């Protein structure tokens, strides 16, 4: 590890140390875990909607104005249903107006639920509260109970007013609410698992292709999947989820809350494994599922077969990463937990990984997962640059480009892993191309071997003037 003070522009480095040290600074308050005013992730309402949007034949009744409603429909539903090949289902609301804010909207909500039931014939209705209904104190839970009695369809309420928590709390509260739909753990369905922690599909970090690879692997060892919660699952699959033999997650970060809750309430064991990037993590993931089900033998055979089938690609990855410094930059992509998974994979192939720009805010929001990864022995080097904390999204992006270029110049053997929004002048793996998915499992190994080969072959090619000027502004022209 070079001494950070050796960096020529050390004033651009806000932190240089290990993940453990960064966590310590965030926990002690030395680094403030707050995003600048120009950067806003989705609110709790948006993320709660993301989760329930992954349930088939679910009619949401958003107790709020039209803006919240159309926004999630447009952002999460239109693209999602086209990517995943599912029909466009309704996104309905009470269209709260000034009168509802003054006089309350509970009656209107009850009528809206009745109408939603008549209109859409759903298996499930989910009431989501927004800022308006939350502030004026409309009792969405009671309305849900009353409505359920009337309409004969299951009605769930989630308090998801946007000011009520950060984006993560929306996911967690929605997963927690789903527990209310689950039936007690009855006779355990041998050889059956749930994949948990999914949301509707093509979110920023969640790709159907990755889920498909997990499904392929577990089916290959004779395991049945009860459902992917909530990535296109049915109400029935949620109901009987506690009777599965095991929960496994597509991503530890998003699955852990529901996994912990189901373990606590229903006694469903939870396979605590990280994301299956590279052979070791993939083997851990597969064995993490197979061992509790007594399928180690078949799993071992599968791992051996699959590993042999990607032997050439593994050689490529070892050759390309060996003795390199892997700069994994995440402020744009691939996201913090994937970045840590990639760091582990790069290390496995002989590289020294450095994770760049893991914002203290992200550390706070993903504290349980980061602690889990540290417990598992992952403690990569981390660099945060000053640009990460700039005000203005363009300022962040253009400053970070310069800083990543500066960091890359400190190493004569660096390889950059991340988004093509950057081009730091070293070989770079484009982790954002859809043709590079899945990244998980053995199919992922094939894709990453292809991507890393391309990155080395074309390392000397310059950034186009068009992209440079579009992305970084006129000064880079």
């Amino acid at each position, binding site marked *: 590890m070079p001494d950070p003070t050796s960096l020529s522009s050390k004033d651009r480095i806000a932190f240089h140390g290990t993940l453990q040290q960064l966590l310590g600074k965030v926990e002690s308050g030395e680094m403030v875990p707050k995003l600048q*005013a120009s950067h806003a992730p989705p609110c709790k*309402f948006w993320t709660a909607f993301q989760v329930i949007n992954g349930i088939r034949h679910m009619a949401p009744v958003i107790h709020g*104005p039209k803006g919240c409603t159309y*926004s999630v429909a447009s952002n999460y539903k239109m693209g999602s249903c086209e990517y995943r090949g599912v029909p466009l289902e309704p996104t309905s*609301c009470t269209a709260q*107006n000034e009168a509802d804010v003054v006089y309350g909207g509970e009656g209107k909500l009850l009528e809206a639920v009745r109408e939603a039931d008549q209109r859409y014939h759903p298996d499930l209705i989910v009431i989501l509260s927004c800022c308006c209904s939350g502030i004026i104190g409309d009792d969405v839970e009671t309305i849900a109970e009353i409505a359920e009695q009337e309409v004969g369809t299951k009605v769930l309420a989630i308090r998801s007013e946007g000011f009520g928590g950060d984006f993560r709390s929306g996911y967690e509260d929605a997963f927690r609410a789903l527990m209310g739909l689950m039936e007690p753990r009855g006779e355990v369905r041998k050889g059956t698992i749930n994949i948990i922690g999914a949301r509707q599909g093509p979110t920023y970090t969640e790709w159907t292709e990755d889920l498909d690879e997990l499904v392929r692997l577990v089916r290959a060892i004779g395991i049945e999947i009860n459902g992917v919660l909530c990535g296109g699952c049915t109400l029935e699959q949620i109901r009987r989820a506690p009777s599965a033999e095991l929960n496994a997650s597509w991503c530890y970060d998003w699955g852990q809350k529901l996994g912990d809750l189901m373990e606590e309430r229903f006694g469903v064991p939870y396979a605590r494994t990280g994301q299956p990037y590279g052979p070791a993590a993939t083997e851990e993931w597969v064995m993490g599922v197979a061992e509790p089900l007594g399928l180690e033998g078949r799993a071992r055979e599968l791992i051996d077969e699959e590993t042999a089938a990607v032997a050439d690609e593994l050689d490529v990855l070892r050759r390309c990463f060996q003795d390199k410094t892997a700069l994994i930059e995440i402020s744009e992509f691939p996201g913090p937990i994937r970045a840590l998974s990639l760091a582990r994979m790069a290390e496995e192939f002989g590289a020294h990984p450095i994770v760049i720009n893991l914002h203290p805010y992200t550390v706070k929001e993903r504290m349980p997962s980061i602690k889990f990864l540290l417990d598992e022995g992952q403690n990569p080097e981390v660099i945060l640059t000053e640009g990460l904390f700039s*005000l203005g999204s363009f300022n962040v992006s253009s400053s970070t480009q310069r800083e990543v270029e500066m960091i890359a110049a400190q190493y004569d053997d660096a390889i950059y892993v991340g988004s093509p929004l950057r081009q730091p002048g070293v070989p770079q793996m484009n982790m954002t191309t859809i043709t590079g998915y899945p990244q998980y499992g053995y199919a992922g190994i094939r894709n990453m071997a292809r991507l890393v080969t391309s990155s080395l072959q074309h390392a000397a090619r310059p950034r186009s003037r068009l992209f440079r000027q579009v992305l970084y502004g006129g000064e880079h022209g």
Partner: protein
Amino acid sequence: MQRVPAPGCSGRCCTGVNMAEHSGAYMGGARQDGATRCHDPYLRCALYGAAQTALGIRGCCVLSHSPQGCHQLVDAAFGWQNADYTETQTLCTKLCEDEIVHGGEELLVRTIVEARELDVPIMFVLTACGPEIVGDDIVAVCEEMRPQVDFQLVPIPCAGFRGDQNHGIDLALEALLRYVASTDGPSTGDARTGGSASVCLIAPHANANPTWMADLAWVEEILARMGARVTAVLSHDTPLEALWRVPSADACIVLSHDAGQSAADLLAEQYGVEQWCRDLPLPVGFTHTRNWLLELGRRLGAEAQAEAMIAQGEAMVVQTCRRKGLQQSAMHRAPAAVVADATVGIPIVRFMAEDMEMIPRLVCLRSGQAGTAGMLQDELDELGLDARVIHGADVYQSKMALAEVGPEMVVGSQIEQHAVAELDIPYVFRLVNPTSRYRMIDRAYWGYVGMLNLIEFIQNDWRDRYRSKHRRYKARW
């Protein structure tokens, strides 16, 4: 709720819309109280419309005083205005529970102070539902902060519960005009001096053409050809100083049937600015384009130029269709439907019936400002069409009406493309927002090139429909 046809509407009108909505001056705003309680809206809220309007001022900063989720609406508005991220900034106070309980004015002050590091000439402060309900006084905060910052500060109260996005456009336009009236702007001269007539264009962005900027550009071009000067556009890429020229304009034109009329009324009342083309459907197709050009020619004393433009334009359309080919077989007497905003939806009815020989049987308008119901009815009467009409339609109402009416062709959006997937409706022409068709070049619907654009889009969607999804056998090479 009593359902009664509104004055000027046929007896087949008003499905799902009550009298209050029709008799009210504004159909899309807070006064709307639909008979149905469950809405699957096509529109976002007032905050979004206000953000669209503010982001039309070149190089501005928009600060949403809101929870972080509302910032996503501002981001969407940013895209709708084709804003440039290297010069336009968006910020958010990201209100949490603390600010909802104790008030968020202090946080707003801190964020405005923080923004001093950005090089912006003006900041618009927009409020969401939460801060308005708890009583944050953004007008007072802006007043207090003005001496402390070197940019102008314009508060726009535009909580989502106040109405839909078109109402938000009206709120923002009124706020802009109030601000102009109350402050001294840079000296830009009197728009009425200089010989040629000066015109202010209002609400070009309240138009569901995904590249509405081309419609605006067409209007600017024809005004220039008739010798008029566009003194300001409210708003699109509008230089800040242009705002202070608005009160001295000779005339204004509202470029939307969905928003902008209240701003035109304000200009007439306060500054005597005359409104042109007020009762004319916007210039889609031969007849409306002719009427528009003749009206402008008359106003500008440029009748001869108008006649020449009409003659040239019509000849160009005819000749282009002769040379390129004009598909008739599908369109001729085909029962058709329109699902759109009033800006596209009303004028396109005549284009479909007169120019394209279709038979409009259903018109679902998702929005429309005062007077549009009567305008549409006049159109249908003149054309001898007995079409079913739904004002203020939501997704569900449109889908049900499409199922009942059973047209062969639908002019609509990506939503209708999905909605009719399970109905036996062969063609959806995706002409209005949202559409997944990417357009790098802005394409007008207005005027003569606009007609050709519409014909081109229709023909491409028609061809796509009959492109087989099956491969009956494989090629040998």
